[in-house]
C-alpha cells in the first residue's frame, strides 16, 4: 500500500511520518501531482496559518490536485480546516470539499482559553445516533451502526466514542484556535465553548480536528482504521 503525505508549508508533519512509521508504513512526502493521484491513501496534516497555507497550495497547484483526489484522504487539524469552504483565519477561501465555514473560538468565560489545547472526548453526532438508535441497543452496537449509517465504514472501529461523557471513553489531542461548526458532514463532535465538528466525512474525504498522531493508542487505532479503509 502506498501512502502519500501532502507536502506544503505547514508544520508538524514529521510527527505524522513518525506515527506512520510506528504502524510499519513508509509514507512519501510529496507535492508531485501524479504521485499524489496514484497513492492508495493520502494524508493532509499539519499545523499552520490558513491564508499562507492556501497561498502555497494554489501556487503549487495542489488545490486542484487535492480537490480531484478519489482515494481516501484524511485531513488533520489545519488540513481539516483547509478542506472547508472558507476560514475566518486571514479571511481565506479554502478548498470547499466541505461546504462549511471555519470560525475562531470566542471565549465566553475566563476558563475558556484559546488556543484550545489538550485532550477531549469526541462523540458521534446525535443525528447519526438517532438514525440507528431504535431499540435501546448497547452503546457499542449504536456506534457500529452509527458508523454504517454515516457511510463511515470503520474509521472508529475499536475506538470507544462516548455519547454521555465519563472518563472511560477515548480521548484525542487537540490544538486549535479555529473550529469547524457542526454541519451536515459532522460524524463526531467535541465540546469547547460550543459543540463543534471533531470529525468530518464526505465521499472519499475524512478529516479530524484533533491530532491522531499525538493521541496515544486511540489515535493510533484511528490511523490504522483509516489506512484499512
Amino acid at each position, binding site marked *: 500500500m502506498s501512502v502519500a503525505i501532502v507536502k506544503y508549508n505547514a*508544520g*508538524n508533519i*514529521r*510527527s505524522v511520518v*513518525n*506515527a506512520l*512509521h*510506528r504502524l510499519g508504513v513508509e509514507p512519501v512526502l510529496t507535492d508531485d501531482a501524479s504521485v499524489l493521484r496514484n497513492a492508495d491513501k493520502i494524508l493532509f496534516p499539519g*499545523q499552520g*496559518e490558513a491564508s499562507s497555507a492556501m497561498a502555497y497550495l494554489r501556487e503549487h497547484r495542489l488545490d486542484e490536485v487535492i480537490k480531484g483526489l478519489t482515494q481516501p484522504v484524511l485531513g488533520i487539524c489545519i488540513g481539516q480546516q483547509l478542506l472547508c469552504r472558507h476560514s475566518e483565519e486571514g479571511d481565506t477561501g479554502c478548498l470547499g470539499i466541505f*461546504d*462549511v*465555514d471555519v*470560525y475562531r473560538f470566542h*471565549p*465566553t*468565560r*475566563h*476558563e*475558556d*482559553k484559546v*488556543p*484550545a*489545547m*489538550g*485532550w*477531549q*472526548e469526541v462523540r458521534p*453526532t*446525535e*443525528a447519526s445516533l438517532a438514525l440507528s438508535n431504535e431499540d435501546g441497543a448497547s452503546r457499542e452496537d449504536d456506534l457500529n451502526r452509527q458508523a454504517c449509517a454515516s457511510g463511515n465504514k470503520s474509521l472508529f472501529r475499536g475506538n470507544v466514542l462516548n455519547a454521555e*461523557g465519563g*472518563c*472511560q471513553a477515548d*480521548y484525542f*489531542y*487537540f*490544538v486549535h484556535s479555529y473550529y469547524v*461548526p*457542526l*454541519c*451536515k*458532514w*459532522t460524524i463526531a463532535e467535541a*465540546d*469547547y*465553548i*460550543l*459543540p463543534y465538528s471533531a470529525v468530518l466525512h464526505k465521499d472519499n474525504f475524512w478529516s479530524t480536528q484533533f*491530532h491522531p*498522531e*499525538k*493521541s*496515544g*493508542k486511540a*489515535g*493510533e487505532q484511528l490511523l490504522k482504521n483509516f489506512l484499512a479503509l
Partner: protein
Amino acid sequence: MIEIIPAIDLIDGKCVRLTKGDYNSKKVYNDDPVAQAKEFERQGFRRLHVVDLDGAKSKHIVNDAVLRKITDATGLKVDFGGGIKTDEDIRKAFAAGASMVTIGSIAVTHPELFIEWLNRYGTDRLILGADVRNGKVSINGWKEDSSEELLPFLRKYVEAGVKNVLCTDISKDGTLQGPAIELYKQIMEEYPHLNLIASGGVSSNEDLSGLEKDGIPSAIVGKAWYEGRISAEKCRDLMGFKANRGLAKRIIPCLDVKNGETVKGTNFVNLRSAGDPVELGKLYSDSGADELVFLDITASFEGRKTFTDMVERVAREINIPFTVGGGINELSDVKRLLDAGADKVSVNSAAIRRPELINEIAGEYGSQVCVCAIDARNDADGWHCYVKGGRERVELGLFDWAREAADRGAGEILFTSMDHDGVKNGFANEALARLAEEVPIPIIASGGAGKKEHFRDAFVKGKADAALAASVFHFGEIKIPELKEYLCNEGINVRI
C-alpha cells in the same frame, strides 16, 4: 433541560417575522434563509422550525425549494409547516429533506385525513400544530377561529397516538411579551408524556429558563433571537450543553535529562538517576501520561547535541505530545528542537532576560508551542521569580511576569513553586488559583506532589489545567493509572 428550536418563517424565500400572525406586520430579518440556518447550526442548535408563510396563505406548499436548500446545506433536523393540506404537500416536504411536518388546519377541518397521515407517516414524523386564540384552535394561517376548544381537541389526538404538539398562543406570538406559561403547564399536567413545543411570546433568556423550570420539553424562539434578546450561550446551557467539561485535566511527568540520563533534583540539588529518558517516557505514555516534559540540564555544547538526538528518538517512539526545555536562548534553539520533533518548547531564564523571545517564538511557530516556565518563591515581600535553576532572585513578581508572558504570546505557564518543590506536601494552590484568575492561558502546576490528593487539590483549589511531577512518578510512589482512576472518581475530567 429544554430543546430550543429556532424558527425561520419564509415569505418570498426570505426570512421574516410577523406580529400576531398579521402579514402586514412583516419584517425581513435575513434575505438568505440558508445562511441563517447555518448560523443556527454553528451556534449549536440541532433543530430548526421552518414555516412556509406563503404556503399558509396559498393553502399549499410553496417554499419547498428553500427547504431543500436548507436541508442540503446543514445537518439540522428540520420540521416544516405552513400550508400543508394534501398528501402531495407532505410528500414534497419530506422529499425536500424535512424530518417532520407540522399540520394544523387539517387536523381541525379533516380529522380523518390527519389520522390517516398519522398512521401512514408515523407519529415521530408528524407534529400536531395547535394554534390557540382565546382558548379556541385557530386555522388557515390564523385568519379563522374554529369552534374547537384546545384541551378536548388535544385529547382526541393524543388518544390517536400523537406525540408531538406545537402549541402557539397567537395572542402572544411576535409580541415579545412572554410565553403563555399557564396554558403550557395545564397541557403538561394533562399529558405529562407529550412532547409539547411551546411557541410564541418568548422574549428573553429568563422566559426560556422559566419554560425549562416548568418542565416544558421544547420551545421555539423567533423574533427574540433575531432582535438579539436571547444569547446562544444561554440556549446551549438550557439545552444541557456542558461547556465545563471541555478539556481533560492533564498529568505530566517531567524528566530532567543530563548527558542522556534522567535525573531529578530535590529542591534543585542532590540529583538522583532514574534511567533512560526515552524508555521512561514511553513507559509513562503507555501508562496514561497526557504529556511529557524533558528538561535539558546539561550546560555543554556536546550535551546539547546529545539532547537533540534524544528528542528525535522521543518523537519517533512516543505518540503523545511532549515539551522540551532547558538552555533555550534564541529562536535557532527552538527551530532545532521543533525540527527534531518536539511539540512545544519551554523557555525560562532566557525569556526573563529577553522577553521578546516569547514574541519571536509565538510569531514564528504559534502560541501553542511556547510554554513559559517560571520558578518562583513566596518571599517576605511576595512571590518573586528566580532564574539560573532557582539560584538567583530577579526583581520581577510572579503574577506580573505571567501576565506579561501571556500578553507576549506564550501558550501556557508552567509555574514551579520553589517553596513546595521536593517537599511533597501539595502544590502552591493559592498562587495557582490567583494565576488562573489573572492569566488568560492554561496553567501547569509544578512542585509539591506527594500524594494523589495533591493533584485533586491543584485542579480543584488551584484551578490548574495540568499538573506536573517528577520523583513521585520516577520512584513509583504514585502510579499514573491509579492517580487517574482516583481523579475520575473525584469527578475530575481526566483521560483514562
